[in-house]
């Protein structure tokens, strides 16, 4: 029986979060692992905060991760990691895209105060470090661009997540699911993004937490 694993996935509307949960779900299905999610659909606008509760385990019933119950937070945007910090369990791992998308509410305030600076990924990291020593910043946008498509940020982050030893989903199943989910002409660039995300995690995640060989 696979070990239980809950990952709280957060991001900004338009970043492909639901696709990411479909990929992980499909990978679990092909590997014979039970998974369930609590997803956020409904308002189709871009640019709002969104989240997916992704849960893996034979016994879990609730699609929502309880407060303090996430083994990991996977944030496609840095501020969104902080927004849902209550879900992270003590000692859980935060894998955070260092990209910040400034919310318009912040920009509007920012405009009024000449000395103000935006909240940065570093600020987020510092705060997260107060509740866990396992915070990994991944520059997913740069990595996605060098993989060949800025839109593959989500798959870069999946590649990073895939290195975790605690994640009960085999890497091959994840990669097969990526290939089966994204448009045919984008398969190669997405698989490249996945591998590059993995490499990035080797450098600054696997020094903090047990990774797969």
């Amino acid at each position: 029986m696979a070990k239980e694993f809950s990952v709280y996935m957060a991001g900004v509307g338009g970043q492909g979060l639901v696709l990411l949960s479909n990929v992980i779900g499909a990978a679990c299905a092909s590997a014979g692992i039970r998974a369930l999610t609590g997803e956020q659909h409904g308002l189709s606008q871009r640019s709002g905060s969104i989240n997916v509760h992704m849960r893996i385990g034979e016994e879990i019933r609730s699609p929502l991760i309880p407060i303090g119950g996430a083994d990991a937070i996977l944030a496609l945007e840095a501020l969104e990691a902080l927004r849902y910090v209550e879900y992270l369990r003590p000692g859980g791992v935060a894998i955070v895209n260092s990209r910040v998308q400034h919310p318009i509410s912040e920009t509007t305030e920012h405009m009024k105060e000449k000395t103000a600076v935006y909240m940065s990924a570093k600020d987020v990291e510092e705060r997260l470090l107060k509740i866990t020593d396992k915070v990994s910043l991944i520059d997913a946008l740069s990595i996605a661009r060098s993989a060949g498509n800025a839109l593959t940020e989500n798959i870069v982050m999946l590649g990073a997540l895939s290195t975790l030893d605690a994640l009960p989903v085999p890497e091959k199943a994840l990669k097969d699911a990526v290939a089966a989910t994204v448009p045919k002409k984008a398969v190669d660039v997405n698989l490249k993004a996945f591998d590059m995300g993995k490499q990035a995690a080797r450098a600054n995640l696997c020094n903090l937490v047990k990774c797969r060989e």
Partner: protein
Amino acid sequence: MVAADVIRKGAGRAFMLCNEAIVRAAIESDVKVVSAYPGSPTTEILDTFSEVAPQFDYRMEISANEKVALETCAGASMAGLRTMTSMKSVGLNVASDSFYSLSYTGVKGGMVLAVADDPQAHSSQSEQDGRYFGPSAYVPMLEPSDPQEAMAFVKKAFELSEKHGVPMLLRTTTRVNHQSGMVEFAEITRKPFEKVDWEHPVGRFVTVADSARTFKLALLDRTERVREEFESSDMNTVTLTGSEVGIITSGAGYNYAVDAAKVLGIGPSILKLGTTFPLPTRLIADFVKRHRTIIVVEELSPYLEQNVMAVAKDANPSVRVVGKGSGHFSEAFEYNTNIVVDGMAKALGMTPPVDYAAVMTRATELKKGLPDRPPTFCPGCPHRASLWAVRQALKGVKHVLSTDIGCYSMSFLKPVEYGDSLLSMGASLGVAAGMQYAVKQKVVAMIGDSTFWHAGLPGLVNAVHHGDDFTLILLDNSVTAMTGQQYNPGSDKSAGERAAKPLVVENVIRAMGIEDITIVDPYDVKKASAAMKEALSRKGPNVIISRRACALYADRQKRKRGETIGSNRVDKDVCKKPYTCIRQFHCPAISIDDKDRKATITKELCDRCDVCAKVCPFGSIREREGE
């Protein structure tokens, strides 16, 4: 990939969204007519039916509203075909007039109405508890907890509907509809679509006066027959552990209750109700008799709780019922495992293993200064431009804005904060009619194209007839944008991409008797604003149509045609930091560069609508080239 699992002929197993599992189940059940209007959290039922429609022979419409959708299903089910519709509970409010009557007349072909509530009002105007539709209309109601159960319950619902000649409610909540999980499905075997002969006696489906009284007695009998069947239905499950504590729950509540018991390390008995109207009262009585404490776990109103208490009054008067009435659970907002843990622990005098309140306090401290990110208009959204044009046009004019349901509803949120009232689909017009009697200022109503077709027409008819003095601003973005850009009566297509006749909104309005119609392009934002200003200065009822396709929809069309979307940039040498683009335009693609405090545009987010360039007083926003 997802659609592939819905259309796969053979049996199998896949990771599916509950709403997709519902569709698969209906297809396996040989549904023949489908009609719906989108509404979260049911929208993916419509979307999936529409996407896979070309693979099957069911007839499908994206209806003008939920009432028409329900009636379309009613008509086909009266004839003898299996039908399905889906809507959110506020949609069933719209459809309820026919819904209540349909319970009287009944149906012949199986009819399933999937209705979903939205605890937490994630994307709704209220947290309405749709379960009360069951008892108030005498319509049997099934409540699944997960995608697999939803699949089984839909199939049962079709069978029960035909057996008892009654439409069936499949009631869910957001966390059931928007739950993905492993689903096992059966083979698809369908009969070819065939029209049937109408063979009912005259008046078979007519309910009024004498026939209504006859129907009423029959439906009371029917309800008792269904209740009897539910007493032994395998949709209700009893797990007896010998504990003094028993949990009664259903739907999403069941999931939280099971996990919460595990967190607390207790093993209560559980009665999981899958049939929540008519309730199996003997089954409940038997369960209540066996326990000293009953904990009822359900979101929203104390529907189960009050029924359980009514049963307990005779079955076990000394039983302690823990729920909302006892103060352990709230009627507000959606639950989670931790909420149920806290409620159960308090009731049982236990200490939860995690101090959730402390976790929240700590998190709140860490989040100090974290900016909010509410949903907002997409980059390129024509509504942003329309709202800019309207506000410029009304500068210095005291006015009141009666707005409606759609993406433009978001205008009341920060940082735009514009709009005075919002009730329900189409209500902007009726409310504006009342305001123009009562308010000294100019009255403006605002509605989108889909909402206008849905429930705006009678409001405008009324305004024309009475000469009500307000200006209607109709934001025509050509699709039902908010729920995912579905087609509407203004589209040249409907479900499954089949051709449809597009209605032209200005022709309809003109035919109603309004000559004063101003049509503007919000992307040509200054010209639009000037035209609006003139129109808004005239006596109503008159109409401004601001027309430009939804950016998400338009971008998808552009990508299909192989066109690039492009982006703008700020010419830093020209930018004098007036911040007009930020102060007045609020585009998520625009922020301030901390290095020089000048505006900057994020390439990946910009849609190149170019409206910000037109708004900028210094002309510092240009097309980004060669990057």
